[in-house]
């Protein structure tokens, strides 16, 4: 196996990292999804360390609040214990989990004050069963996931690790920089390892792979795969980003400046070699030798390094006592405490089980308790919600004045509830991209936003074009651009910032004082200076070949013209420019004289080449949709949410996004189904389809008749402030506008109520103004709760949930199984898109909550934006993956309740089984990374998927 293969074998373990500009919620343990949830978590815990469940004291408090049902808790204990074929009494286990486990650590210490007697038998048992006594094995366990320089640090109390990691970060953050620094690293186009060699002035002829191989040989590494993983784990955020980049060849920065994990490993090994060469132990072979000679000392130093060694042992080490004795004292101490812990537990438990047996039972219980608690919490929720969902239902109103489709996002639950209550409205839920993946080029922007779940690569490009003249916009925009550019030129310069600061530094006072004391007024003032986007429409039709040719030529000529203008003193005619373009693209002869420099510039910087021509052609061919596309997208959407007849006058389709200030994580609050962007364009595209005559005619043939007076209106829901605004209302007549304004009023009322409900759970929100303020306050670390608190999915008709108060905790997808065919196509689509997004969001929150240090991003207060790709903490650290502390915790307490996604599906079991079979989400469903519950009203049964099968949990009357 080559190094590359070995690396590929381990790289799945590293969490994926997407640049923070389009934050994508995902499961950090995606690489473990082929295992059962419980096994996956256990394995991850061994690899990453840290926690994978909450502490038992956390679950205990939920238990006391009544969120965990004691009956279900008992049942789960029984189940798990039964699985392990044990004859532990239930009461005993329960008492252990509830009374002993939360104070497990404190039971270990108490002996110090009272000298207690230790049971000899127990002691010998512990001695035998512990790895501690086999010193060799113990050593191997201690150095697992340690690099050689770390071992050196531990043994000789040096501090090389920090310096090495710093040097690595310094280099890669500059290499991966996306235009944050002014003076960029030169020659990055050569690749990461090549640039590194120049950076370190290191002459080495061969490839990075070769270098890795040689270095590993030099270090005498035995298990290469494990060692590569060890290195990747040291900075798993940066490694994850490099992995992401190298796997996505279309990522612009990767295209220009190639990087790869092998390069990264090579860089790491370069520094490791350089460091260990100077120290006493320069390879694992030497370490082997050294550790056999000084085994007890090595173990002691490692223990000290990991902060496990007891104070008395430290004192003894300091006094230079014999290491053998210190170690054996330490072991005695350790085992004594272990024994005492068990004895103390027994004092609480008052059981009659022999201590030795008790020891192994407790060990087992400790291993299983996290899962037992978690499952009991989930099961309690499942039980309660199944109860609620099956006992009662509200009738759908037949005649409604409008329907509104919201994103399935949990945040739309409350607002949907209030919209429905504010008048005769019916609401639907669907994945925010509405089943239409588009690559969207915003007005005045040059890059594509992929508005679809991260797993789908859109095949249709949509351009936003101004509908009205936009001179005011352009002039303001131009002014802002010039100001910004001039300012940044003056700031980022070795000799001009000083006079600049003296001359205009005080202008920044407007921001400093205004934003702090008068945020709303300042925001209003500043937004006056900002250009306001004119009304726009989209390019929805396909372009003809001729048009494509025309546009490419136009683009090229424009670029060439501006380049010539800037660089050449000579004036060129249009004809000459065209000729130049032909020369550049088609390699035709050139009769006019143009300097080589300019031609080179056009080719290399502005990409006027044949490749670009092909690229543009390909892209322009992707612009717009064919009629068939349009009809099929609309048809899929309507059948998916089950809106196929009884169309009202207005069908609102509402996308959402978030507004916040000074928040690097802002895109985490936008629509997850649109890859961390706002979902307005998708709703507008869909409404344009649905309002088009052609499409309506075609779709009629498929059996869906949309009445002529039905209008589809796109809308936008700002989740921070809960305001809803409608777009594209220009085509409506006066009567319709009047109706719409009434609807708008109702929706405004719903917004108000929704704000009120949400403000209960946020700090610093007493009035409506406080809620609005959150969207523009630069000192706000938590503009909204976002998706925190998410717990479940409900796929089914709204009438079963309408009467429930779901507290913004459910993803709600409208689904009517009666419209689905035998292949469960619709349900499969829901599984393939929205469910995957839901699972990613859910597990992102789960892991960011259980161990924010490893899977989350830590506190925002210490974040430092780096290379425009993410944040790290402080001066240099690993790139932070996951969610910040403030998104899932409130004042140090978990706000998000970590549970797996409780997926309620209203459909016959057979249809669900079919969909699971067809879906790409099959692996994680069957491995229980979510909790599927099927409400089968035809069979009058409710099923839950547990231990590999669907079991009946309730019979519906």
């Amino acid at each position, binding site marked *: 196996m080559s190094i590359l293969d070995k690396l590929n074998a381990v790289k799945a373990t590293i969490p994926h990292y997407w640049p923070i500009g389009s934050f994508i919620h995902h499961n950090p343990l995606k690489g473990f999804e082929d295992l059962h949830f419980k096994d996956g978590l256990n394995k991850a815990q061994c690899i990453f360390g840290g926690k994978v469940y909450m502490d038992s004291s956390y679950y205990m408090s939920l238990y006391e609040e009544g969120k965990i049902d004691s009956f279900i808790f008992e049942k789960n204990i029984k189940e798990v214990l039964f699985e392990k074929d044990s004859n532990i009494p239930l009461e005993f286990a329960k008492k252990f989990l509830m009374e002993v486990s939360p104070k497990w*650590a*404190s039971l*270990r*210490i108490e002996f*110090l*004050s009272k000298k207690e007697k230790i049971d000899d038998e127990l002691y010998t048992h512990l001695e035998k069963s512990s790895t501690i006594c086999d010193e060799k094995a113990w050593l191997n366990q201690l150095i697992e996931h340690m690099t050689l320089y770390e071992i050196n640090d531990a043994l000789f109390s040096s501090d090389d690790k920090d310096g090495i990691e710093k040097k690595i970060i310094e280099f890669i953050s500059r290499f991966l920089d996306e235009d944050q620094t002014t003076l960029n690293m030169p020659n990055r186009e050569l690749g990461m390892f090549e640039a590194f060699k120049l950076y370190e002035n290191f002459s080495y002829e061969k490839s990075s792979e070769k270098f890795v191989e040689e270095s590993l040989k030099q270090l005498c590494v035995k298990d290469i795969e494990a060692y590569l993983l060890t290195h990747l784990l040291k900075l798993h955020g940066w490694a994850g980003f490099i992995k992401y980049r190298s796997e996505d060849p279309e990522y612009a920065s990767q295209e220009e400046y190639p990087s790869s994990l092998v390069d990264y490993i090579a860089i790491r090994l370069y520094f490791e070699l350089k460091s260990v060469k100077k120290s006493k132990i320069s390879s694992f072979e030497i370490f082997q030798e050294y550790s056999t000679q000084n085994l007890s000392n090595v173990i002691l130093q490692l223990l*000290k390094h990991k*902060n*496990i*060694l*007891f*104070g*008395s042992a*430290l*004192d003894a080490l*300091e006094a230079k006592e014999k290491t053998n004795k210190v170690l054996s004292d330490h072991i005695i101490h350790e085992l004594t405490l272990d024994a005492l812990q068990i004895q103390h537990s027994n004092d609480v438990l008052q059981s009659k089980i022999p201590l030795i047996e008790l020891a192994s039972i407790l060990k087992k219980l400790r291993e299983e308790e996290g899962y037992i608690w978690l499952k009991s919490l989930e099961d309690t929720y499942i039980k309660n919600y199944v109860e609620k969902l099956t006992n009662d239902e509200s009738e759908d109103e037949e005649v409604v004045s409008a329907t509104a489709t919201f994103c399935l996002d949990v945040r739309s639950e409350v607002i949907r509830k209030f919209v429905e209550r504010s008048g005769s409205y019916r609401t639907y839920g669907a994945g925010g991209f509405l089943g239409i993946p588009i690559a969207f080029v915003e007005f005045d922007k040059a890059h594509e936003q992929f508005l679809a779940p991260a797993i789908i690569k859109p095949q249709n490009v949509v351009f936003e074009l101004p509908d009205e003249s936009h001179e005011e916009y352009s002039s303001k925009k131009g002014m802002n651009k010039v100001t910004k550019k001039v300012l940044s030129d003056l700031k980022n310069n070795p000799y001009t910032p000083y006079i600049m600061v003296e001359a205009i530094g005080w202008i920044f006072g407007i921001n400093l004082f205004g934003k702090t004391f008068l945020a709303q007024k300042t925001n209003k003032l500043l937004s006056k200076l900002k250009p306001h986007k004119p009304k726009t429409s989209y390019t929805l039709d396909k372009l003809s070949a001729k048009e494509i040719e025309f546009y490419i030529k136009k683009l090229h000529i424009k670029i060439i013209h501006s380049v010539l203008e800037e660089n050449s003193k000579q004036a060129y005619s249009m004809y000459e420019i065209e000729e130049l373009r032909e020369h550049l693209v088609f390699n035709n002869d050139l009769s006019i004289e143009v300097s080589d420099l300019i031609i080179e510039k056009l080719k290399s910087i502005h990409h006027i080449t044949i490749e670009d021509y092909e690229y543009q052609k390909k892209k322009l061919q992707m612009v717009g949709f064919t009629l068939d596309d349009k009809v099929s997208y609309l048809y899929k959407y309507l059948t998916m949410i089950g809106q196929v007849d009884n169309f009202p006058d207005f069908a609102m389709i509402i996308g959402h996004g978030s507004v916040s200030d000074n928040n690097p994580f802002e895109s985490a609050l936008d629509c997850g189904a649109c890859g961390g962007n706002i979902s307005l364009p998708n709703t507008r595209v869909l409404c344009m389809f649905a309002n088009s005559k052609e499409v309506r005619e075609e779709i009629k043939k498929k059996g869906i008749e949309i009445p002529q007076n039905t209008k589809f209106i796109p809308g936008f829901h700002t989740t921070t402030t809960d305001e809803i605004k409608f777009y594209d209302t220009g085509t409506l007549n006066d009567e319709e506008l009047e109706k719409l304004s009434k609807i708008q009023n109702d929706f405004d009322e719903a917004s108000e109520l929704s704000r009120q409900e949400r403000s209960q759970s946020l700090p610093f929100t007493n009035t409506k103004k406080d809620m609005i303020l959150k969207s523009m306050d630069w000192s706000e670390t938590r503009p909204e709760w976002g998706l925190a608190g998410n717990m479940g999915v409900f796929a089914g008709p709204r009438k079963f949930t309408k009467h429930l108060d779901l507290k913004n905790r459910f993803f709600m997808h409208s689904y009517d199984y009666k419209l689905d065919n035998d292949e469960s196509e619709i349900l499969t689509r829901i599984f393939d898109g929205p469910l995957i997004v839901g699972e990613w969001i859910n597990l992102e929150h789960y892991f960011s909550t259980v161990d924010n240090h490893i899977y989350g991003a830590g506190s925002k207060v210490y974040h430092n934006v780096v290379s425009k790709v993410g944040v790290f903490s402080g001066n240099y650290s690993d790139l932070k993956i996951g969610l910040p502390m403030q998104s899932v915790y409130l004042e140090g307490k978990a706000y998000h309740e970590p549970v797996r996604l409780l997926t309620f599906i209203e459909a016959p079991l057979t249809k669900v089984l079919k969909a699971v079979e067809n879906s790409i989400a099959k692996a994680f469903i069957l491995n229980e990374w979510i909790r599927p519950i099927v409400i089968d009203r035809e069979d009058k049964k409710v099923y839950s998927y547990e231990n590999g099968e669907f079991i009946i949990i309730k019979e519906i009357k």
Partner: protein
Amino acid sequence: MISDIVLFILAAGVPYYIFLEKGTKFHGKYIFLLSAFLLLSAIVLSLFVENEHRTSLVWISFFSALFSIYKATKTTNFYKLGYYLIFVNAPFFILFEDAGAMYSLSLLVSLIGLYLIAKFYDKNYGSANYHNITGTTLVRPYIGTFLTFYLIALALYPPFPNSLFFLSHIFKSEPNLVWYIVVTTLFFGNFFLAMRVMRETLFGRPNPNIHYVHMNSKDKAIHFFIIMLLFILSGFGFKEMLL
């Protein structure tokens, strides 16, 4: 001359403490108590006999202080650190003459605080070694605050009396070469030792292998009293320095 030597021996008993440490397994706690007692005697004695520094004596105490600093950087035990700090500051006692007594008194008071913390650690964690007990500030803010106070006092920062008496002396003395060397070394020495403790036990991530213990209200009251005592001494210090 004799009185000088007696004072010096009382204040800086390096040779035999090292000897005690080495030879028998004399517990650090008792060495600390003994040396604190001796220092106290020296302070009391200095009120009666004239304390006039002799350059040679300053040099000797300086070298013993250097050695103590070196020893102190190697330890992570509060008791040991406590008595090393007494030896480290012996040159000030000699050099500062009358002001030295007040300085040493403040030192002694802050060290008593440190000693109580050491005792607390000893009782609850099995040893006065602090290397493991990281993140006290976060987990046990009371202990953290008290310890911070003592360490800042020991690191010679105002408004604690140690620093004030130190300053008032250096502003009013006649500097010479020895003076500069001693002042510089001990100014950094004390600071370095105190800050090292701060970094290792007050700061850092709480150690999951340790069960942190709360301080009871009686202990809190005692520490509060000691800190009050320090501030009273500070009052004297301000008076001496500014007026």
